[in-house]
């Protein structure tokens, strides 16, 4: 464990820009923060709990051209610039890991791989839990991440810097780090205790798989979905939602593009024959909860929800994933 006297995050952004990296860092826009490509350190602001949109568009942009067609097909070469993301929270880093496990395993997605392979991840541990955060309920920690290259904890006048990979070592060696003292370490531990006690939300995941299995056909889901408007805001802001659509833009000559799509939109599963397996709104909403807490758990062994709480804050009608999952009935009257 090392420490840095000063603001490591800001200085590492400056250093990376100097070294020719494309740097994604949080930028303040009126009332909230979002990750953007920055040209200078002055644009950056680390004064936030979490960003409005998740940083998944770094590796999975909202629009992406796959191929160009005209006389025949031209492959769009996937970009391989060295890129870094600085100031990403541990929950979003887990989101990155969960997306990797879909896009990089089995058949590798070359467009995703090109962006992910050269991505340097500088994480930023949390100093307090947000009003909607519940990462601890899904097995994550707000101050630990095995998947970052560097993890930074802010102690005020200095920052603790944990170097977790070879890639991280290289960039960290360009900045002046010293070994952490006993006092530094105990201050960090104290901060961790404080963060853990600041959580106000939790999800009851006890017996979750069994509860969900036998509540599938319950009317509970119709009740939960009563206010839902199928807007898809939850899926667009979510760090682990990655459904996409592919379509051709241009009749004779054009591009084949992929864009974000949402399982909440009725068109997502509409077949050409007009049959729609999830025609009703409550079926689509139920699918979202099951996908995150059951189906992906079965397929990949992990919850596909990182507890960032963005969907709760954004839902225009007040549907709360933490409450919905906790209140799944354990005894279902058929």
């Amino acid at each position: 464990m090392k420490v840095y006297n000063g603001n490591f995050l800001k200085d590492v952004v400056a250093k990376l820009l100097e070294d020719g990296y494309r740097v994604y860092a949080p930028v303040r826009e009126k009332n909230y923060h979002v990750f953007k490509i920055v040209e200078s350190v002055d644009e950056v602001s680390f004064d936030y709990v979490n960003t409005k949109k998740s940083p998944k568009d770094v590796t999975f942009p909202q629009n992406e051209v796959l191929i160009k067609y005209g006389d025949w097909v031209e492959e769009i070469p996937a970009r391989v610039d060295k890129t870094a993301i600085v100031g990403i929270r541990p929950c979003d880093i887990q989101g990155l890991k969960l997306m990797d496990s879909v896009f990089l395993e089995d058949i590798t997605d070359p467009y995703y791989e090109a962006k992910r392979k050269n991505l340097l991840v500088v994480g930023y541990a949390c100093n307090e839990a947000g009003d909607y955060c519940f990462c601890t309920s899904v097995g994550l920690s707000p101050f630990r991440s095995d998947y970052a290259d560097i993890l930074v904890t802010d102690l005020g006048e200095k920052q603790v810097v944990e170097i977790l990979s070879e890639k991280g070592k290289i960039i960290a060696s360009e900045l002046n780090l010293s070994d952490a003292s006993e006092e530094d370490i105990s201050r960090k531990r104290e901060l961790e205790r404080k963060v853990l006690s600041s959580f106000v939300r939790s999800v009851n995941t006890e017996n979750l798989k069994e509860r969900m299995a036998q509540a599938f056909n319950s009317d509970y889901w119709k009740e939960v979905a009563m206010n839902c408007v199928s807007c898809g805001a939850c899926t667009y802001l979510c760090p682990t939602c990655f459904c996409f659509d592919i379509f051709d833009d241009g009749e004779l000559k054009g591009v084949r593009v992929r864009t974000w799509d949402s399982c909440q939109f009725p068109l997502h599963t509409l077949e050409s024959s007009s049959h729609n397996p999830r025609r009703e709104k409550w079926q689509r909403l139920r699918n979202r909860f099951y996908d995150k807490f059951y189906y992906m758990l079965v397929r990949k062994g992990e919850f596909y929800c990182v507890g960032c709480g963005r969907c709760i804050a954004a839902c225009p009608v007040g549907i709360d994933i933490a409450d919905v999952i906790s209140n799944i009935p354990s005894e279902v009257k058929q």
Partner: protein
Amino acid sequence: MSSVLDEPMKNPYLPYKAEIVEIRDEVKGIRPIKTFKIRLIGRERFDYKSGQGCLVSVFGRGESWFTIANSPTRPDLEFSVLKTGKVTTKLHEMEVGDVVGIRGPLGRGFPLEEWKGMNIITIGGGIGQTPLRSIYQYVIDNEKDYGDLTIIYGARTSRDLCYRDELFQLKEQGFNVELSIDNPEPDWPYFVGFVPDNLKRIKPDPENTIAITCGPPIMIKITLRVLKDLGFKEEQIYTTLERRMKCGIGKCGKCKLESIYVCRDGPVFRYDELSRLLEEA
């Protein structure tokens, strides 16, 4: 210009260049079905298993998933296309010599090696006969490796039967082909009624037999019941599922059914894999 002819499927979104070499009308009318024979340009046809499919690209319109309609023992790739939407309408307007894109082979096929030495029954309805054709052509070409073959197939009217001439020919050659239509027609010498009723009449023996069924959902539902009544176990019954598909490689989530990606873990499924699902397949 492009590297698509050199590195197959390295970029799984990049299609192979192919051209239409033959078009055959199967069913005419307001819901026409045509069979397209497509040949890859500049490369050997890839090897595949019966039941796998391809995403056929009509540039400017999009891609559609079609199960490969011919067995890998036969040349080229055949797809039977029902005109139903954007891509298929354009495809029906195309002519021999037109260029399309092929991404394949995709999905999981039928485990024909596991079925060696067993009897095979295919039960199809309407356009569901397509994947079944790929099976029975393979079984016919490898006659010695398999037991008895029974082809049960029906459609609404005699004009809606796909591969009609081919099936009549197989019947003449002595293969066990049982055809049916829903309502009586003059000059129809075979069974009149629904496919599951025909199956009930034929009463196949479940001993050492595999049954594969494809067709409209209601037909499959009743067929399954009939098969179970005849003594077939879930492990002996196979089917194919259909879903809206886009990427074909298990990423975009459109075809997702519970923890299964239909494009990747299917579209071929053994029935016991489906019966334990929560969501209705």
